[in-house]
């Protein structure tokens, strides 16, 4: 990973370890890998993180995701390519990523509740706050994708 600003991994390794511990927890959370990558991609699209889009599109493709579902992801509301569960998760992802604008409305919350049990939903939420954290590090410090 290269950067024009600060390499946080070298500068504050303990902070990065704290973030990696969250990643480890998420890996064991039981959320589907395909769903996890869609959430990471969608948040990174909204926040404009090129480094993250490059990384997670590779991860998604390596995990068997189709090109088409990645290309259409920005417009998931207009497409039938995503399951009801994925759509509910994507709506929750958008509302939490843009929290200052929409305040996580009841309609979005009720919809995601229908498709996720309590533990899945809090881990989905952690996944969203986590990719939002990575986006801010990667954009804030101008990480460059390969």
């Amino acid at each position, binding site marked *: 990973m290269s950067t024009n600003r600060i390499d*946080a991994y070298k500068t504050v390794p303990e902070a990065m370890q704290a973030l990696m511990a969250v990643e480890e927890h998420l890996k064991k959370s039981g959320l589907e890998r395909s769903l996890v990558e869609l959430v990471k991609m969608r948040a990174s699209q909204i926040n*404009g993180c090129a480094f993250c889009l490059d990384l997670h599109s590779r991860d998604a493709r390596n995990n068997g995701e189709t090109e088409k579902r990645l290309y259409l992801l920005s417009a998931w509301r207009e497409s039938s390519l995503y399951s009801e569960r994925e759509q509910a998760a994507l709506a929750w992802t958008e509302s939490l990523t843009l*929290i200052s604008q929409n305040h996580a409305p009841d309609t979005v919350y009720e919809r995601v509740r229908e498709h996720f049990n309590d533990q899945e939903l809090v881990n989905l939420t952690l996944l969203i*706050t986590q990719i939002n954290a990575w986006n801010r590090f990667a*954009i*804030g410090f101008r990480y460059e994708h390969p």
Partner: protein
Amino acid sequence: MMMKSERMDAYKADPDIAKLMLAAEEHIRKSGLEPALLDLVRMRASQINRCAFCLDMHSKDARRLGETEQRLYVLNAWRESTLYTERERAALAWTEALTLIADTQAPEDVYEEVKKHFSDAELANLTFQITQINAWNRFNVGFRYQHP
């Protein structure tokens, strides 16, 4: 931690989450950044993200540590005020840029200004504090935690 939420008690649904988040806070607490500065950062992000629970908690924390009422009341409009040091102003601008990352993309002028006032390690830890409060804001707004 006694917390009431209108939706779900997220920290109870998976207790590991609060542990992981609090471990991150512990790292930031030991980072050497001034507690008064950290509270201003937490307050400003929570204002932008409109987290009442967080504003209540961090205003109490700030006041307990000796922060003035005036600096908390005027914080929304810090750019127009002389109450904040150059270092605080640089941190507040960085807080706003990262909190509203989808709109701002963390611009050069804000980065250059904050670099003048913080060492690399300080700036990386300040950034971590900003991502952390943004995470707490999303949990506490997302699950509708109620302030006392």
